[in-house]
């Protein structure tokens, strides 16, 4: 177990070093920072001085080491566009995105798993076929189109739900939440559904195929022969095993979730990290772009490492193999 832990940690650190290297290269070489930060009529001496002050006259590896040092201390530089600390910007926007992702993940698990189990138990039922058909169409409809359609129906036609923003939020000092006001909750519904749809389809299909496989195994047949209650067989014996790959896939889906969050936040003008990144791309705000890249890398690596370890904890066979 300790061996697995150490090897996973080394892997995670290697990946993070690569990501910081890419971020550093972007930060340092995409556009000249001196050019971007100095006045237009700055003299050559002034530019040289700024260059020295930023440490840009040092060898590249020294610059890279300093860059990592700054990043570890949470100093991500200043946004070119807002003239504010990137770290502050990220801290401000993170709650919006995290709440959205939380809602979307909860929705996709709460709806996806039961639908998957149902269509595995009745593979030829009318409802199962309908679900399969809808999910095929769902995969072909891009996230932003789903979002726009939801806005057109629920915000424009029926005027039930807000179409943009977070509604009223409550400031808890270090966290702004939309969960505590009615308008904040209403504002979460449409973006939450939009973001959930993709992973919902995926989880549903996965649970369905896993359940179908597991229900035809010997131990299930044996449990049936023993006359165990059907409910116990399906939920305690079969579903538990079917959920193993769901853990992995949910973990691996973090990347897509981040990508779809960018799109969803743009459609709904949701003031989160995705929208921040999108504006950084449009206005060429390199420090924000690199910081977002670092953050995504960190989230990605952390979750993947946790999922790997979780898998070892859940599945005893893996432990035996590694030992």
């Amino acid at each position, binding site marked *: 177990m300790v061996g697995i832990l150490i090897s996973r940690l080394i892997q995670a650190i290697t990946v993070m070093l690569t990501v910081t290297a890419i971020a550093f290269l972007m930060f340092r070489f995409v556009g000249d920072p001196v050019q971007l930060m100095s006045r237009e009529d700055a003299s050559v001496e002034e530019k040289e001085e700024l260059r020295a002050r930023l440490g840009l006259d040092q060898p590249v590896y020294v610059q890279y080491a300093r860059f990592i040092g700054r990043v570890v201390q949470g100093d991500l530089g200043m946004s070119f566009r807002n003239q504010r600390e990137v770290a502050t910007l990220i801290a401000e926007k993170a709650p919006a995105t995290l709440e959205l992702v939380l809602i979307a993940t909860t929705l996709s698990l709460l709806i996806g798993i039961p639908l998957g189990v149902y269509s595995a138990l009745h593979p030829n039922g009318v409802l199962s076929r309908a679900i399969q058909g809808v999910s095929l169409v769902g995969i072909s409809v891009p996230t932003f189109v789903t979002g726009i359609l939801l806005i057109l129906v629920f915000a424009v036609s029926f005027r039930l739900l807000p179409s943009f923003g977070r509604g009223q939020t409550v400031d808890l000092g270090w966290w702004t939440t939309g969960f505590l006001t009615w308008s904040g909750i209403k504002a979460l519904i449409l973006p939450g559904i939009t973001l959930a749809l993709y992973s919902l389809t995926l989880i549903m299909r996965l649970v369905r195929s896993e359940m179908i496989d597991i229900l035809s195994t010997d131990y299930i047949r044996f449990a049936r022969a023993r006359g165990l209650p059907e409910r116990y067989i399906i939920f305690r014996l079969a579903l538990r095993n079917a959920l193993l790959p769901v853990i992995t896939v949910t973990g691996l889906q973090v990347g897509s979730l981040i990508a779809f969050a*960018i*799109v969803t936040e743009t459609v709904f003008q949701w003031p989160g990290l995705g929208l921040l990144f999108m504006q950084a*791309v449009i206005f060429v705000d390199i420090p924000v772009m690199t910081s977002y890249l670092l953050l995504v890398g960190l989230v990605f690596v952390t979750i993947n490492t946790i999922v790997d370890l979780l898998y070892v904890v859940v599945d005893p066979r893996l432990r035996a193999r590694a030992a």
Partner: protein
Amino acid sequence: MKTGTIRRKRLPMPPYVMAAALVGLAIILAAILSPLISPVDPTDNASFNLIDAELPPSWLEGGDPRYLLGTDNQGRDLLSAILYGARISILIGAGAVLLAATIGVSLGLLAGYLGGWVDALVMRIADVFLSLPTILLALLVAGIARAVIPDADSVFWAPIILIAAIGINEWVQYARTVRAATMVEASRDYVRAVRIMGLPMPSILFRHILPNVIGPILVISTINLAAAVLTEATLSFLGVGMPPDYPSLGTLIRIGNEYAFSGIWWITVFPAVTLVSLVLATNITGDWLRDRFNPKLRGSK
């Protein structure tokens, strides 16, 4: 690849695949022929007038028979804009697929033929690309391009950047498929023969091995075209794609989205319906082709 044995079991084309293929072909044909069949040229400033802006489709109250699907915020004929937009979307998608196929096939041939550390390196890079979400990588490429190229929004640069940003994502599947097929081919007698004849490696790879591994590439390309068109639309929608004066379908949806809230739904709905029909049709056709010609590809990305 014993394609002969697979071909013998001819699966009939189910009606819904037929319908999808027809719809897809119709849209692609209409898009390619758009300069001939569309009512006006929407990229020509003289063809539209602000007075006609935001007219609803012709069958609704207030509609104008000159504009079948209505007009956009600048008074452009929406039908023409969609046809031209679909053409731009498809051209960029095809360009991206071509780029991805070129990169992927070359790397796949090299990795499969040479093996050893080249193979390990290519496959390792492929794994990294596979774990990155398409949109995120494409946005990064677009972002860097915007920083390096001053007029990245221009009609000249925007398509090039889009093709690069999308193409760089999709080469992995080509590389993996071609690599596997090349490894099989490389041990065959004809390859040994041309090697003994002393042919240069590029000639062995592209003139002799490539024709034998190209079958699955065409099938992958159909599905990748749908994915590329979708990615292009998403990027344009997000604001890093085609500029509004040369709109792709994604740009039109983006423009329309800004007006949707005031009840002007047609600017965004019609391009969206076109996009979804095109992608769905290509996906259904591609899936069928894949199962028909190479069931082994099933389930890979």
